[in-house]
């Protein structure tokens, strides 16, 4: 096992833990992208360039866009509810 492989494995182990540990969804999305990068590196050093290419397009283009849009929708919705509530009170 080469140093590169060990380093990539360590990065993946830490990254996976960080995704689970992050509490704030926005920060978690960011951590997930970084985790995707770590996985991509791991796939490269495991001699799997096809998989690495897939992982990088999914973890940089595919998922974050959808997660961020979903979060935006949720926040927007939350703000609206709060607005409604303050209107009720006034």
């Amino acid at each position, binding site marked *: 096992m080469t140093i590169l492989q060990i380093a990539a494995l360590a990065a993946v182990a830490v990254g996976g833990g960080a995704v689970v540990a992050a509490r704030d969804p926005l920060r978690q999305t960011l951590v997930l992208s970084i985790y995707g990068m770590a996985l991509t590196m791991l796939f490269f050093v495991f001699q*799997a360039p096809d998989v690495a290419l897939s992982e990088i397009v999914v973890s940089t283009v595919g998922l974050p866009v959808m997660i961020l849009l979903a979060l935006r929708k949720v926040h927007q919705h939350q703000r609206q509810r709060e607005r409604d509530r303050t209107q009720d009170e006034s």
Partner: protein
Amino acid sequence: MSFLPFAVAAWLFLAGLYGIVSSRSLIRAILSLTVVQSATYVVLLGVGYSKGGQAPIFADIPQTSKAVDPVVQVLVLTDVVIEATVTAMLLALAVQAHKRFGSLDPQDLRALQD
């Protein structure tokens, strides 16, 4: 040392499960699910790797050179696609659930109870 990839995989599987169990937000549960899934990538690619092997692409290397197992890579490719699709669908469900329940906390997402 040669057990390291598989130890990492077991760790990812359990960490992801912990993330789902302890999650107070659906989004966090969904992202933790992708961590569980990434455990399967690590196991599969770890299994197929052979020492000193090249990527199974014979464009620039002679056909007789030693290469890693291509089959597991195809399995992982399928796995990555599944990850993207299942996550997309779960996110859509989460958006819709937030509309109906006004919350993403699994504590509050209970319509049917016994």
